[in-house]
């Protein structure tokens, strides 16, 4: 990226946009350029920037006191707790799965590899509402295992385990789909060399593979975590909306909003918006580090 090179003080090699703008064959007339820029940036401001600004403006509309009060109220605190817990369980589960799937897929050859990759991607193309529904069909009162669960006094739907399950489902592919292309591109030579030299499988992974893919791994974890904390549709179906019990932050926002407590709803929403901004900053940082690492390797 041109930006990273500039930040590191590397003399411009006319990478990025400059190489097009300084070349008469690849540059547009100024009026074309300014029209495209004006239209695209207005579209950006209208559809992305304004909603973000609106969250914070609405949250602070009734003053800072109301804002803080909405965040430290017991229902809000328990929603924060549950959101953190759901992410804390589902992200590590999908991290272990992602690493394991990427190892099996990229380090070995077998039939049906392409099908397996497609199946791993499947949760992304399923509507969140359907994602919630499938667990109701499995564990709900009329579901497959529902009667058995009731007999043993176990609750999954309308309880915390259901929320965790739905979260695991919607964040399922994140780590795997970052790692698979990365490990595929890096090949097997280094791992094979380590094994031939007597390293165990675990040592090979820890000392050879992991350092090569750590930024991609982190990237996947960051995206996985953002979705885990922000999921609404799937969690809404399985939660039952029990206040102080099965409310995550996004569900808490919905309840407050439907009760016309707009300032409080936006205050809690602003917390999630801050989380989104932190996610974007971290993501940018990881991308920058990954680029720097690639550059170092090439130098």
């Amino acid at each position, binding site marked *: 990226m041109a930006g990273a090179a500039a930040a590191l003080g590397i003399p411009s090699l006319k990478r990025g946009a400059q190489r097009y703008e300084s070349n008469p064959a690849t540059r547009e007339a100024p009026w074309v350029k300014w029209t495209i820029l004006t239209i695209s940036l207005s579209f950006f401001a209208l559809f992305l920037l304004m909603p973000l600004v609106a969250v914070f403006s609405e949250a602070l509309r009734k003053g800072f006191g109301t804002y803080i009060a909405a965040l430290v109220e017991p229902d809000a605190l328990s929603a924060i707790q549950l959101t953190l817990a759901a992410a804390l369980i589902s992200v590590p589960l999908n991290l272990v799965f992602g690493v394991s799937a990427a190892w099996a897929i990229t380090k*070995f050859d077998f039939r049906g590899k392409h099908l397996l990759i497609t199946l791993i991607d499947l949760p992304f193309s399923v509507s969140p509402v359907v994602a919630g529904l*499938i667990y109701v069909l499995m564990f709900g009162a009329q579901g497959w295992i529902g009667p058995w669960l009731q007999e043993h006094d176990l609750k999954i739907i309308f309880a915390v385990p259901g929320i965790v399950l739905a979260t695991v489902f919607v964040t399922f592919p994140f780590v795997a789909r970052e790692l698979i292309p990365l490990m595929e591109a890096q090949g097997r030579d280094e791992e094979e060399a380590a094994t031939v030299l007597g390293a165990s499988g675990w040592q090979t992974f820890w000392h050879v593979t992991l350092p090569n893919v750590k930024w991609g791994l982190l990237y996947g974890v960051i995206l996985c975590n953002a979705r885990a904390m922000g999921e*609404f549709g799937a969690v809404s179906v399985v939660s039952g909306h029990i206040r102080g019990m099965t409310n995550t932050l996004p569900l808490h926002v919905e309840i407050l909003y439907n009760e016309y407590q707009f300032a409080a709803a936006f205050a809690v929403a602003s917390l999630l918006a801050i989380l989104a901004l932190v996610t974007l900053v971290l993501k940018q940082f990881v991308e920058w580090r990954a680029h720097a690492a690639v550059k170092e390797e090439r130098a």
Partner: protein
Amino acid sequence: MAGPRSMSSNTAASLNDFAPAGASLPAGERRKPRRVLPGFGLTMGYTLVYLSLVVLIPLSAVFLKTAGMGWEHFWDVVTAPRVVASYKLSFGASLLAASINAAFGLMLAWSLARYEFPGKKLVDALIDLPFALPTAVAGIALTALYARNGWLGSLLEPQGIKVAFTPLGILVALIFIGLPFVVRSVQPVLEDLETELEEAAASLGARRWQTFRYVILPTLLPALLTGFALAFARAVGEYGSVIFIAGNLPLVSEITPLMIITKLEQYDYQGATAIASVMLVFSFVLLFLINGLQAWSSRLNGAGRAK
């Protein structure tokens, strides 16, 4: 999320796998199961068990439940007027939103790849906002903007344009969530485009517009279609951001995912499942299509370019 660019190298690898036996590929000798590395059984076993438990078995529940309800009942449920109206709305609004995103997303990707302007890094980073911002937050924010007393609603309503609580509001929400799919599909291809082709076109006397139309656009087309399809697929299933701004009037502004929720709230599990199975079949078809598009895109733009 990281869709097209991360899939490209997979596609390349699996194309190698299916190469004819006589083809002299450098990786050819590896095609016999000569497993040097350990851990295949463990990682493959774990992958398959976890995938089955979390994804495959629960998803199959939808089809098994649907299969048990009888064809006539199923047909009655999925073709009820209210449900059909929701398909039309969901698919229509999603198609329109994806088309708008394809046009403006292409321009945004072009601006980011080809021009320098102040604040460019910020714009580039914020493109991914819809991926990071919880959908419920986006939903209430858009509703606040376009409601009668909102910043944009107070400008539009005197002109007779109602956005919040109408199908137009649904369109706005679907544009919001779909935009990054198009930008992030097109942008990397645009950034990696070699200038030689454009120089050749210019030296042969092509005007800039002709170069774009006949040289650049055909190269971008698979990526643009991929972005369009990803945005469309996401929009059809979207719930959180739409539900607040839609108004949810039967036959007017009810989306298909809401129909599933409505059935569930009435404890009509069979009805909910029947509609879900229709949506699932549709998303599988789309997934198949998108995979094909991505394979086409990576073949066209030189495969094996991870990130």
